[in-house]
């Protein structure tokens, strides 16, 4: 080999080695996860437990095909079946059952006229999937058919509240109050007031409601006479309704900066409705914020963890043991990966928070966190969604996003001490 050629080869090999080494370094740090699942195996023990069926018995599954068939021609059976599946989905943390409930409803929803209760059930499923506009459209249809349907009003009000459209929620809350639904109507209107510049009034209203409220929050008759929400006429609200009320109160308290108070309320709410993921996650967030990490991990110890549970576990674990990658992070990323492959965007909130809590790399990571938080803010506007957007705006110092957030806050008169502090800290000095 002549000299120049040798030089060329030597230089080339050296460069190739450098490039290959950096490629290895990149692929090692990227930690790309795939949804390939675990390696399949053949159990050697015939008694090996492949799966535990939630709900304890498989009896519920027996004859499910027959029932599905019958429900095609019987709206009452369809409503019962779908309702039972939704309730089971909630109690046993089996999200698959939402899809089963929807299959029961599907042939009915396709018809030109649909009984209102079936519309409400379908709307309930749609909002689970964050298809809020479609859920509202179904609730509208249910109300047009049955203007006295308190459930449809409640659903519509709540979807409006979740999406930050407080002014459209207000008439439905007022309707509930006017129709004798004192308790649910009060909680409904408190959420609207609390997000439209009357946070303290909303807190006081719910405090009075829970403190006895015999005279009712607006002095309109007795509570406990509603169509639902109360166990029986004359009795107080059910545990589930109390838990919901407490979680709304805790949310208002958090936005006023009263963390210990919110913690007490949420602890109480979890005790009243242990199956509710929402209250559990809210309590975990307060515990994390107050640096009670062991207690947070403890409250998140469920058998079938949701994406929200895994995310908070990862956050709590990473703060307990800094520098160590939390176990739940890999499972969380796998779940989000599968969700993306399924073509869904229902975990924007968790993805935004993940991107903010565990930034992969500096500038790119911050920008993608902002994109996720903004997309999420465009879909839903609960306390956490607004806070995440504010956090992303502050870390990226993105002027357009800041303007969007400020304009919305000003327009709605939304109050949250944490958002206000974030925006103050993010002001250019």
């Amino acid at each position: 080999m002549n000299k120049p050629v040798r030089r060329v080869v030597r230089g080339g090999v050296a460069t190739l080695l450098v490039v290959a080494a950096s490629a290895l370094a990149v692929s090692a740090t990227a930690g790309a996860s795939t949804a390939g699942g675990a390696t399949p195996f053949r159990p050697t023990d015939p008694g090996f437990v492949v799966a535990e069926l939630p709900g304890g018995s498989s009896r519920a599954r027996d004859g499910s095909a027959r029932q599905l068939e019958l429900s095609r021609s019987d709206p009452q059976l369809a409503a019962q079946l779908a309702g039972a599946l939704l309730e089971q989905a909630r109690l046993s943390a089996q999200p698959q059952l939402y899809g089963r409930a929807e299959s029961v409803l599907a042939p009915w929803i396709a018809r030109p006229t649909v009984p209102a209760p079936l519309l409400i059930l379908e709307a309930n499923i749609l909002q689970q999937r964050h298809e809020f506009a479609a859920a509202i459209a179904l609730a509208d249809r249910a109300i047009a058919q049955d203007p006295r349907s308190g459930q449809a009003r409640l659903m519509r009000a709540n979807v409006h509240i979740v999406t930050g459209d407080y002014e459209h929620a207000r008439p439905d809350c007022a309707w509930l109050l006017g129709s004798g639904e004192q308790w649910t109507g009060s909680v409904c209107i408190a959420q609207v007031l609390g997000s439209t510049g009357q946070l303290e009034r909303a807190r006081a209203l719910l405090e009075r409601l829970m403190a006895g409220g015999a005279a009712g929050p607006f002095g309109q008759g007795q509570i406990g006479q509603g169509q639902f929400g109360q166990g029986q006429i004359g009795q107080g609200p059910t545990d589930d309704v109390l838990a919901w009320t407490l979680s709304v109160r805790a949310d208002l308290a958090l936005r006023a900066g009263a963390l210990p108070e919110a913690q007490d309320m949420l602890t109480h709410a979890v005790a009243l409705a242990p199956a509710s993921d929402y209250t559990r996650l809210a309590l975990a967030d307060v515990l994390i914020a107050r640096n009670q990490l062991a207690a947070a991990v403890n409250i998140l110890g469920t058998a079938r963890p949701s994406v929200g549970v895994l995310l908070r576990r990862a956050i709590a674990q990473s703060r307990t043991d800094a520098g160590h990658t939390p176990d739940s992070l890999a499972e969380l990323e796998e779940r989000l990966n599968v969700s993306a492959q399924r073509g869904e965007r229902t975990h924007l909130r968790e993805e935004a928070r993940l991107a903010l809590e565990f930034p992969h790399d500096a500038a790119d990571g911050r920008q993608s966190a902002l994109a996720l938080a903004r997309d999420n803010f465009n879909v839903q506007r609960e306390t956490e969604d607004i806070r995440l957007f504010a956090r992303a705006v502050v870390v990226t110092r993105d002027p357009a996003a800041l303007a969007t957030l400020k304009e919305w806050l000003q327009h709605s008169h939304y109050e949250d001490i944490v958002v206000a502090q974030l925006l103050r800290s993010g002001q250019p000095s």
Partner: protein
Amino acid sequence: MTRVSGWFACVAAALCAFCILGAPKAESHESSTSYLKLGVRADGSLDGSLDVGVLDLSWSVPLDADGDGRVLWKEVEAAQPGIAALVADKLIVERGDRRCTFHVTDVLVTRHVGEPYLSLSFAGRCEAAGLLGIRSDLFFGEDSGHRTLFDVRSPSGTMAGFLMVSVREWKESQAPHPWTTFAAFVVQGIWHVWTGYDHLAFLLSLLLPCALTAGRAAWRPAEGLQVVLRDLLRIITAFTVAHSITLGLATLHVVSVSARIIEPLIAATIIIAALLNLFPRAARLRLPLAFSFGLIHGFGFALALSELAPVRGQIVALLAGFNIGVELAQLSVVLLVAPVLVLLRQSAVYATRLMPAASAAVAAAGFIWLGARLG
């Protein structure tokens, strides 16, 4: 009290207020998912696996014979004929519009996202040629939230996607003729160089001293056209061979490098190549550098190619087309620049002023790109 009809009350009882009120606040959950892996070879042989959730399957096939709420391995083994029949009934694979025949060969236990799954292996036979198609009715009728994620390998490449209740079929799209792909990517290759200012800048910094010979302390005009052409040919060949190697390796996924590393590196190569033109003594480095830096630029071409098209089938047509397009564009630059250099070389100003000034300008541009790509 609001009057309610009998069956509405039924629903109201099943759906307590909190379910409805709390529903928008509930964490959204992902629903059930199956995972289908399918491979079809050129001779028509078919194999693959379908991973289904045990909980999903338990609604369609009795898996808990003793009703104790647990699915044991022996219960799965006993249910295997039922499982195989269900898959045979609900999953259809086609090739060339003819159904493939296949059967479940094995059932294993696995997990996906923390949930128990059964992995059903299958094998069979399809038509030896034709477009591949999948249709599944598994679980969609009973669970409208179900999705089947598929991952298909066929001689024309690998494809992934999902089936859902409203889209239960997938069909491989007709691939364009390889010559069409080739021609399209020749154009893309030409276009990439012509519009990619950084490759032009690098090429220019390699070409600028081609009509000169390095003296001890200064550049002087090269003696004779032959010398100029030989130098040009050597430099351009070294660069071309090198970037073809890495373009091929990266496109075939033998080596992969992040854009975050390659983009700044390309800017650095421009700076170094341009600055070396200021030092005639470093002239002997031009050839090895053209080769080494060519390796880096090849990764840049591969990144551009991967952005243009998800590389599936027709890899040869695609890669050859793009590479030839890049060479043609380079050649056009050489044909444009070389005559000017040959004409200019006799002018003393070129070697002492013009060439160093142009090189410094290219280096400055390189610095700007480096800053932008690191920032």
